[in-house]
């Protein structure tokens, strides 16, 4: 019996040491990516290529889901607010919830599952088919050539995607509340403008998305680079990217929100 307990404790210790080692490895990898970004910045066409794959191709899902999230917010907000005769405040509700929370978070979750998983699968498969090793043989640094451009493309496209998401969502809320239900258009916009502050709401939302962009793409490129070079390994790494990104986004969102919006009316 004591022997079993010892084995159990040993298992816990092994896991803890493993995960700390992996965290340190990820941090070293992240630093290396940043150090070698200079080379990929000089070849900006590489980043543009990746911007197409991470940004432009993600835009469709962002546009459609932003529109629908805004429409649902408009509908639900109207249902609740009209009980108090405050249906003109639906613009405020839609805009504040999108700009502060839903825009950054939902866009980052979609970005992680659409672009992050693709980055991981691509880099993982490159590793499995020994393309990364081949690059190394030709004295081409795979981190500078493959990892850094994808990382920077993700960091650049995330705030833009979130802004598109929020704008689309507000348009969706406008469609439902003003065009469909018939809330007064003037008070819809003016109430929104009087309660959404540029510095406190919009800039803080953009800062959030920058954090999310760095976190999601860093996780995606690391998981791809660290994947077991087998078909199973790549699939496991892709799953890990999506799960870890989602958890990190939500956790980071709470921390950032508690710093940003404390004591702001």
């Amino acid at each position, binding site marked *: 019996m004591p022997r079993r307990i010892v084995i159990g404790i040993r298992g816990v210790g092994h896991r803890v040491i493993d995960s700390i080692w992996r965290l340190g490895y990820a941090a070293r990898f992240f630093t290396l990516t940043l150090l070698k970004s200079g080379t990929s910045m000089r070849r900006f066409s590489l980043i*543009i290529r990746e911007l*197409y794959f991470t940004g432009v191709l993600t835009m469709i899902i962002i546009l459609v889901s932003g529109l629908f999230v805004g429409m649902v917010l408009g509908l639900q907000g109207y249902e609740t607010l009209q009980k108090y005769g405050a249906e003109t405040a639906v613009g405020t509700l839609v805009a504040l919830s999108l700009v502060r929370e839903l825009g950054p978070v939902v866009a980052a979750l979609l970005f992680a599952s659409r672009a992050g998983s693709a980055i991981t699968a691509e880099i993982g498969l490159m590793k499995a088919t020994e393309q990364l090793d081949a690059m190394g043989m030709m004295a081409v640094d795979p981190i500078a050539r493959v990892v850094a451009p994808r990382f920077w493309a993700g960091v650049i496209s995330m705030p833009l995607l979130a802004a598109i998401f929020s704008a689309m969502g507000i348009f969706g809320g406008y469609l439902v509340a003003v065009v469909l239900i018939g809330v007064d258009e003037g008070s819809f916009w003016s109430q929104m*403008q009087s309660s959404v502050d540029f510095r406190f709401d*919009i800039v803080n939302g953009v800062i959030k998305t920058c954090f999310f962009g760095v976190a999601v793409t860093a996780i995606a490129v690391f998981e791809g680079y660290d994947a077991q070079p087998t078909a199973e390994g790549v699939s496991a790494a892709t799953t890990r990217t999506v799960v870890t990104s989602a958890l990190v986004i939500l956790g980071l969102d709470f921390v950032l929100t508690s710093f940003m919006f404390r004591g*702001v*009316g």
Partner: protein
Amino acid sequence: MHRTTMDLWVGLFVIAGIGALLILALKVGNLGTYSEAQSYTLIGYFENVGGLKIRAPVKSAGVVVGRVKDIQFSTKTFDAAVTMKIDNRYQFPKDTFASILTSGLLGAQYIGLAAGGDEGMLKSGDKIMKTNSALVLEEMIGRFLFDKASEDGDGGDGGTF
């Protein structure tokens, strides 16, 4: 995919993103309607600010003329010192009256400025001399009950005379 088509799409994507940010800033946010750059500060000391918040509007005759910038408790006068940013386009006489009002029954509180008749105008950093505190519901009910009780007392006295 061809290089130039890719460039075109990326360009469209970046323009759409920046455009969305601009829409958020100008159409949704208050950047287009009010800028702090061209404004001057006024300070008002209130006995009680009630539920007044930072960024609450300062209105005169119902028109928004500025925003509350800061609310502090002053240990010299034991009052609340409210700093307001007023748009440069609007000047107020020296004997302007500032009171804390509520929009609607449950609405947010704001500062109402009522202009006086003085020739001189308030300058940046000036203090508003005449202020009126926020109405606190408990105090109001308390005063009402007190008045009611004393009224009844008076009525009783009147009966004996």
